[in-house]
């Protein structure tokens, strides 16, 4: 492989967030005219690093150089002016505006600064879409009418419209169909030939092997491997992602599991465009058992949990707690039956940020302190304080707003709220997301302790090491279906990876077969 010019470098990059160290002394080289693949588990620092490159965040310490000149972007516009474009995992489009309007948003081509030159914008848009092999999209269509895959293409077109020299794609394929992935890869190859430096972030390892020229592996904010892609296989990536030395996972004391405490049968959730987001999923968990559900983003795992909690009125299927069918349709009713959810998105679903720590902890179990309609505030504060002590939540005062806590402590507040309802089954959606290693280890110890007390836990994770070390049994989900069930003692990471991405395209399957031991 001929050497590629290095366009952008980061040296000794450090990024500190309140409570966590997101990047520790990372070095990163971005090769022009090549695909620079970036992999790592959730929270490893991939997105943080790319946000720094794209000017969304700034480095706390360290230097960044662009073509040999030191740069420091304080906002996205500066990075864009320097030719750096980023396509985020969450799309930033205006669904009510047309394709052309979206592509030129913020830098509309005008006559005299007032009148938008629609014809010009349309023509340019058409040219861009042709280059991206999507000339079937009319520039006048509202973006909201397009499929997710097409919207992704519009995002890429938006970046290209600004003469981008460096293009960052954060998980671009998570919402794409196989055919769209193939088109995207062709587009990437064209861009490469034009000399554009591409950063490609993905969890789908086979995809990386297929498209990448250089690879950088991140783990817990540090670079654990950086080299050219030649001779690299999935096994090597997994090894570097996970590392030899394991995190501190509490080991299972061999325990007898009790009877089945929760069972879901034939759960379905129709997708608006046809098909199923949750496709006939059945699973059961026993007392004292931790069931890990592994899968990639968009596999339907969180939606399954939402069905269990009664969040989707259209969801079909049957649920049983301790063998008795769950007839309640409301969230409160399901909580009453002993189901409790720890949502993936703390800010959005788990906490009422404006309320105090005490009020958040007790929100689901106010009945316990209420006679007729009178609430005993002293009893409430005592109960909240008890959980604060039990889960050793670090707080200055119970009355401070919950938003003042670090991620790990916020998570503990959410867990306290769930535990206070005295659940029989705990559903945890990515319980370790956005919290630092110390807090993670503590969270895992808490989970073990709870199962020892007779709870059944179902937890979702995209972290291979986590699911293998922590679960008693592992289910793998992909495309809304359960694609594998494994015993945690004997499963290998390759088996899990294989089950989590059942060949969307043939090429990928071939690679998998080659690399599987």
């Amino acid at each position: 492989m001929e050497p590629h010019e290095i366009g952008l470098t980061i040296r000794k990059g450090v990024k500190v967030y309140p409570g966590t160290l997101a990047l520790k002394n990372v070095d990163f080289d971005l090769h022009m005219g090549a695909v620079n693949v970036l992999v790592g588990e959730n929270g490893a620092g991939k997105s943080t690093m790319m946000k720094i490159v794209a000017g969304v965040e700034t480095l706390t310490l360290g230097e960044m150089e662009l073509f040999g000149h030191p740069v420091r972007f304080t906002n996205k516009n500066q990075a864009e002016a320097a030719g750096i474009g980023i396509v985020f995992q969450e799309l930033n489009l205006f669904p009510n505006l047309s394709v052309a309007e979206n592509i030129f948003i913020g830098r509309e081509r005008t006559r005299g600064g007032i009148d938008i030159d629609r014809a010009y914008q349309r023509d340019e848009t058409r040219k861009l879409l042709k280059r991206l092999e999507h000339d079937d999209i009319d520039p006048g269509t509202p973006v909201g009418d397009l499929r997710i895959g097409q919207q992704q293409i519009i995002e890429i077109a938006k970046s290209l419209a600004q003469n981008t020299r460096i293009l960052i794609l954060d998980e671009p394929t998570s919402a794409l169909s196989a055919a769209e992935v193939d088109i995207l890869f062709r587009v990437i190859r064209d861009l490469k030939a034009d000399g554009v430096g591409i950063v490609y972030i993905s969890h789908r390892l086979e995809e990386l092997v297929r498209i990448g020229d250089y690879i950088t592996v991140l783990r817990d904010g540090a670079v654990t491997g950086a080299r050219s892609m030649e001779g690299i296989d999935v096994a090597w990536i997994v090894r570097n992602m996970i590392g030899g030395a394991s995190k501190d996972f509490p080991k299972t004391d061999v325990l007898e599991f009790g009877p089945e405490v929760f069972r879901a049968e034939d759960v379905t959730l129709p997708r608006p465009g046809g098909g199923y987001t949750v496709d006939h999923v059945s699973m059961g968990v026993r007392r004292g058992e931790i069931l890990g559900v592994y899968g990639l983003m968009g596999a339907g795992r969180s939606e399954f949990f939402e069905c269990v909690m009664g969040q989707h009125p259209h969801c079909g299927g049957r649920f049983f707690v301790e063998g008795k069918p769950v007839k309640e349709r409301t969230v409160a009713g399901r909580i009453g039956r002993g189901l409790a959810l720890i949502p993936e998105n703390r800010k959005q679903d788990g906490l009422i940020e404006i309320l105090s720590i005490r009020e958040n902890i007790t929100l689901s179990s106010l009945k316990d302190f209420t006679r007729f309609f009178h609430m005993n505030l002293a009893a409430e504060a005592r109960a909240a304080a008890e959980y604060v002590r039990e889960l050793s939540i670090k707080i200055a005062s119970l009355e401070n707003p919950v938003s003042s806590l670090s991620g790990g402590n916020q998570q503990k507040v959410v867990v306290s709220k769930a535990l206070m309802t005295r659940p029989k089954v705990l559903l945890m959606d990515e319980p370790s997301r956005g919290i630092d290693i110390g807090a993670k280890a503590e969270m895992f110890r808490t989970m073990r302790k709870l199962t020892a007390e007779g709870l059944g836990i179902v937890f979702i994770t995209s972290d291979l090491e986590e699911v293998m070390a922590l679960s008693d049994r592992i289910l793998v989900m992909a495309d809304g279906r359960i694609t594998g069930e494994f015993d945690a003692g004997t499963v290998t990471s390759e088996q899990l990876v294989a089950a989590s991405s059942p060949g969307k395209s043939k090429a990928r399957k071939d690679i998998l077969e080659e690399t599987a031991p």
Partner: protein
Amino acid sequence: MNSASVTKPKESGSGALLLLLLKARTFIALILVFAFFAFAVPNFLSGANMIIMSKHVALNALLAIGMTFVIITGGIDLSVGSIVGLCGMVAGWLILNGMDIGLGWTMQFSTIEIMLIVMFVGTFIGLINGLLITKLNVAPFIATLGMLYVARGTALLSSDGQTFPNLNGNPDYGNNTFYLIGAGTLLGVPIMIWMLVVVGCSAAYVANRTPLGRHIYAVGGNERGAALSGVKVDRVKIAVYMFSGFCAALVGLIISSQLVASHPATGNMFELNAIAAAVLGGTSMSGGRGKIAGTIIGAFVIGILSDGLVMMGVSAFWQTVIKGLVIIAAVVVDQAQQKLQARVVLQQQAALND
């Protein structure tokens, strides 16, 4: 882990004092306004004036209490002014005409029965607001704006735009005591002030010591999060609009009783004064934050300000301008308080992590 430790500024004393001052700002404003007029206006402190002023304030305060709950859930109720008008008309109609139940019979009601019916009407309109907002997903602004027109139109239709005069009632029906709602006193204090005290205390109790109150704050703070925690969001929302309608019905009764007449245009723009009082009292329009006590103090600031300016002989036009400026200033100070408060709390938390 602390390779890049950040030095934390330690400034607690002055910050805490400033925060306390900011928190009590509506109260301080009340004292200042009060002191100013006590000094500037003769007779301002006389007992008679105090009672007249509290009567003025009570009307707005009652509406503002209902409005506060609605705003805390993140909604808005624009229909209260019209409900005041409509409920006044209902009361007037019942006194003058009774209720025709067909077959040539007419039912007549005593004062208490009329009060109950009118309260039911107000609460029922609130229920419709709540159902529109929760079950049919109409934005609160739109739903209650529509109700504003519907209720006002109905009030006008009920009398063809005329006033129902002379609501003196008939001793035979037991409704000749209707005037007492607005004019009667108990232990030397007007009945309507007692009503404010009862409603205000109950509302404050509900807000602080009942699950419903907690749920109201939770829904306003994060609706999704509240729903996932088992809060029945729809029921909470319906309840607050019903309570707001109930408060408006009380005001409708009081006004028609005070005037011994009901006019369909009564209560025009009252909703805006109620919103102003709530905001002045520290209720956040984005929901999740607000106190009943703050709202009542806010209503007093607005009421004393306008009455005092009248007594000073300031023109009505200037009064309007001044009222507007006070509201804007209140919100600006509120923002400053939020920032300072967040900083103080973060410092406490940071000190803990040392």
